């Protein structure tokens, strides 16, 4: 099948790639644009480790056609840090030992960012709801919940400054 050109903003930069019309966004990110932040887990939309933000909305890159992202703004975990300065969520994940094998971590961070972007003061139930679509096999979820709540506590202070 003929390749089609796709252009979108990836973590703030204009990027273009040729994609098969049936290629998922995840395939184009990983194979076309060398962004290995989002992981290929189940490939069926159940595990959440491919999660990205498309125009600010949390989406599963494995179930999103790349061609449908034309002109969109795509954010992945690779763009979370500001140069050498990690995002408060990334620091909190380290401080709370919220990663073990690390395979779910990109999706967990992205789902958490989507939550904090719309609700900087979430309850424990809000956090559980936000990561309910992301599977973790190592941590028992509790350290991840604690890390997200801790990151939320640091956010307002940063935003004030």
């Amino acid at each position: 099948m003929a390749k089609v050109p796709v252009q979108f903003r990836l973590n703030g930069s204009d990027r273009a790639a040729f994609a098969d019309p049936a290629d998922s966004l995840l395939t184009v990110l990983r194979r076309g644009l060398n962004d290995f932040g989002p992981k290929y887990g189940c490939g069926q939309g159940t595990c959440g480790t491919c999660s990205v933000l498309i125009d600010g909305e949390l989406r599963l890159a494995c179930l999103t056609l790349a061609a449908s992202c034309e002109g969109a703004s795509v954010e992945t975990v690779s763009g979370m840090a500001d140069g050498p300065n990690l995002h408060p969520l990334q620091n909190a994940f380290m401080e709370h030992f919220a990663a073990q094998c690390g395979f779910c971590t990109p999706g967990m961070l992205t789902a958490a960012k989507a939550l904090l972007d719309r609700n900087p003061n979430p309850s424990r139930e809000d956090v559980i709801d936000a990561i309910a679509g992301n599977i973790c096999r190592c941590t028992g979820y509790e350290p991840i919940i604690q890390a997200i709540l801790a990151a939320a506590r640091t956010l307002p202070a940063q935003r004030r400054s």
Partner: protein
Amino acid sequence: MARFRGRGMASVNYPIGMNLGGDPSQALIHSNPDGKFTVALSAIDLGQGMKQVTRQVAAETLGVPIEDVYVDTADSDTGPHDMGSFASRGTHRMGNAVIAAAREARGVLLEAAAEELEVNAADLVTDGKGNIHVKGAPSRSITVRATAQAAQFKQGKTIAGRGIFLIPLSSVDPETGEMNPNTAFAHACLVADVEVDDETGEVSVLGMSSAYELGRVINPKMVEQQLVGGAWMGISHALYETPEPYYPNPDHGPRDFNEYLMPGPGDLAPYSITILERPAPDGPFGGKGPGEMCANPVLPAIANAVYNAVGVRVNDLPITPEKILRGIRANGGAKPQARRGGAL
């Protein structure tokens, strides 16, 4: 129709490693010309902390900053031999192998430094900050980096060490049947509180409390992380995980892991942990290792708690609502057992 609360307890004596064919682990350490050390292992780190623990053990034994130690577990084809990551053996077996390798490497390091300082190697000490100096005379010193460079470019000496730790095969005494399956045991006790719905058969874990005796805790945060994650795996194993939940007819069972049931972040139970340290005489700095026993006591504790709540003894895992409802029906109704103890 009602919800019944129950409490169950379980204790574990857990053997660290095994010795069915003998249980060896090897480690190799060498210095690089920049004065940093590479530890080569075939032990695998799947997130359980093998790299971190062996890095701490190597740095402590070498007497250098932890930042100057790199652990390479890249390739079990080309790396030194290890039996594997199983039976909670990693910290104990590999930790001891790393200590042996680091001691030998430290010996060569101090000899090379002694040659540069023109002193006896036995008189040298490390400060753990990247310096080697004469005991009682800190001004007579040389950095580990300068020593590594002198060894490499001037003395023609390899600062390196080999380590192996072997639990030899223990054969069975033909007269008594006795054998010595292990040298180190870790211990745990866990209490679980559950609520069982006698209409749906569903079990909610309300809370758990445990005490773990793990020898010297080499990295407290990673031990806590492993115990918390492992307890969740225990709940998952006890109540959820099976490829065929719709027994006896598997026709409508899950087809792949996407339909394999595990508890999610909304199914967690509050969990409090107490860590006891009773250093193992043959452990690396007294360490044993939490490993598999993070999950083990959760299963019998929950099974006991279900029995305590409704009087149903489920003997095969997982403890599904269907098994509980069948048990309640066979007993002619829920039969709550006597309760002991206060709040967790």
